[in-house]
């Protein structure tokens, strides 16, 4: 039982990690707590569902279309809505993401208001047994993908030239700007990547949560909890935070009471922020 709880905890935790990763990228680019990340999540799932069902594209093409669309949406949002508010106080940026969340929900509700549709998993197939532990192919795919993304990010930020530039731009924007780095463009690209990450997480979890306009909200809080646990603004922190949160939830549900599953995220946020605000891997930044 324990092994099963931990393994499926990691599987769910990987999705939380993906969400938290996307939110951290957005946070590092425009230091904004993104209340509409849940909606990127939902749009990503819809952007696969619609072409898959109505236009009959292959799953692969739908996937590419969805990630590309969300990349564009992320950039458009940054360019059109966030940049003009750049000099505004943080609270206005947070408010803009709230407005966006309503907008995306309103629009998708207009077309898919009523029914809740199932998105076929990327990898269907019956469960695979590892001794006593059992996993669905979809779970393994999620873990594999998240591992891939994490390695890609690690290599990009640590090893490549552009990675260091992006890192500099997000750490000290003004300094980077003065030394000739096109910070606005980087910020724009990071929004695109963040939104696409959200879409990917949405597509991976959609077979479980099913696709409907409000699917994002529930995951938003998990993303916050993972970011907080791992350390606000720290990329590795987001991944570790997500996975630890997933395992916590399953253990709490399995051993204590299944009613606790829901509030594990909230307890994590409160305890971590009051005791160790920089989280597990975050560095001692001014707390907000």
């Amino acid at each position: 039982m324990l092994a099963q709880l931990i393994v499926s905890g990691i599987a769910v935790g990987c999705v939380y990690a993906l969400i938290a990763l996307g939110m951290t990228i957005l946070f590092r680019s425009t230091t904004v707590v993104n209340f509409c990340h849940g909606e990127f999540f939902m749009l990503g799932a819809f952007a696969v569902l619609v072409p898959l069902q109505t236009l009959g594209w292959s799953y692969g093409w739908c996937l590419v279309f969805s990630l590309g669309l969300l990349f564009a949406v992320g950039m458009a949002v940054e360019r059109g809505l966030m940049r003009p508010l750049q000099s505004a106080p943080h609270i206005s940026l947070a408010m803009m993401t709230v407005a966006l969340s309503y907008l995306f929900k309103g629009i998708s509700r207009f077309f898919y208001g009523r029914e809740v549709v199932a998105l076929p998993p990327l990898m269907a197939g019956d469960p695979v047994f590892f001794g006593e532990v059992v996993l669905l192919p979809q779970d393994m795919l999620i873990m594999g993908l998240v591992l891939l993304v994490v390695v890609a990010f690690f290599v990009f930020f640590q090893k490549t030239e552009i990675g260091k530039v992006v890192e500099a731009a997000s750490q000290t924007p003004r300094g980077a700007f003065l030394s000739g780095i096109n910070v606005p463009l980087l910020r724009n690209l990071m929004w695109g990547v963040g939104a696409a990450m959200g879409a990917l997480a949405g597509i991976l979890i959609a077979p479980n949560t099913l696709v409907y306009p409000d699917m994002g909200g529930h995951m938003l809080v998990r993303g916050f909890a993972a970011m907080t646990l791992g350390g606000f603004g720290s990329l590795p922190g987001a991944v570790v935070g997500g996975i630890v949160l997933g395992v916590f939830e399953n253990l709490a549900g399995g051993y204590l009471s299944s009613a606790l599953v829901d509030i594990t995220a909230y307890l994590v946020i409160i305890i971590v922020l009051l005791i160790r605000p920089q989280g597990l891997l975050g560095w001692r930044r001014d707390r907000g």
Partner: protein
Amino acid sequence: MKRSTLSGLLAAVAIAAMPLAGQAADTTGVTADTIRIGMFGPLTGPTAIGSLPLLGATAIYRHVNETGGINGRKLEVLVEDDACDPNKTIAATKKLMSQDKVFMIHGGWCSGTVMAIKPELQRHPEFPYMVLGAASTAISTPVQANIFHPVATTATVARSMVDFALSKPGAKRIAIISHSDEWGKSHIEPALAELKARGLEPVETAYLERGSTDATSQLLRLRAAKPDAVLAILYPPELTIYLRDANKYGIKAPTVTTQGVSLEDMVKRVGNPAATRELYVFYPLSRTLDDAGFKKWKDIYTAAHPKDPVETLSFMGMTGALAVVEALKRAGPDLTREKFMAELDKLRDFDPGIQSGPLTFTPQDHAGIKLGKMIYMKDGKPTIVSAYPAGG
């Protein structure tokens, strides 16, 4: 597709509301040639699936208008969207009662919203209210003179689920997995009572929150309890997760679930026939949708809403509407609310052939439907069954 529903719905309203001008409506919502009926339900929001019963009811009212109306009057239907939010429901009912001055209200899909307007209805005992689809027992128990409940209540559903589970030969160990909200609680309590009456206790009770994406911990607890049958009191999204994970973790016990879901929809969502082989769903209707006897109602439905899906839920609102129409006819031309409610109280074994059991309202008991059967996929075809099939 959604856009069409809205226009379809508003069109239904427009047709029904032809003689809108007329002189000032009588305070009780009845004029020389119209009876004004207020309706509310979730047209938008997460539970917008609850708009299907509303479409069913408006289809009946539209059909009545087209076939000559009632005692020379046409039905004027006003629809309000409450998105299953109790605050919006309270505002909607106050608007219908005091601004639109409707004769009666027929509506409510989420139990929480109906409970929210119960105090308002208590303050206006003369105002008739017919429940659309909300099933919570607390709506009609203790009985309230002006609240009529034409749907199998959660108590009826819970009792039928327990009886069905125990009809499986040698079944003793019953497990329950449910939401911890009002809807869940209003099923669990009567189920526990029924089990206790049989000298039994649930071997495991697990909670699965709305919107959760993983049920591993709950499933492992259920598997450890080795149940003979599992009562799953879950909405469609969470039931899908349960069925898929139960199959994944090898829980072979049959799953008995409520009328909050439709069998075809669940099979489509889970997508894995093995996971839905032993799924038994409480069935609120008398026949399966493709049964010949049902054609009449399906035609009425598609006439009013051609572009909308035809599902089990589409017909859940019809019984209530037919009961209203019947009582209006019996109340005769000089119609008053008191007469209408008196007629409803006299409705005995009213069975238009839609719902799972005869509808009976008595002054002491406004929970009209006491019987229900189960439906399951028997080699690809939905089949109604009242006890656990031998083949199993």
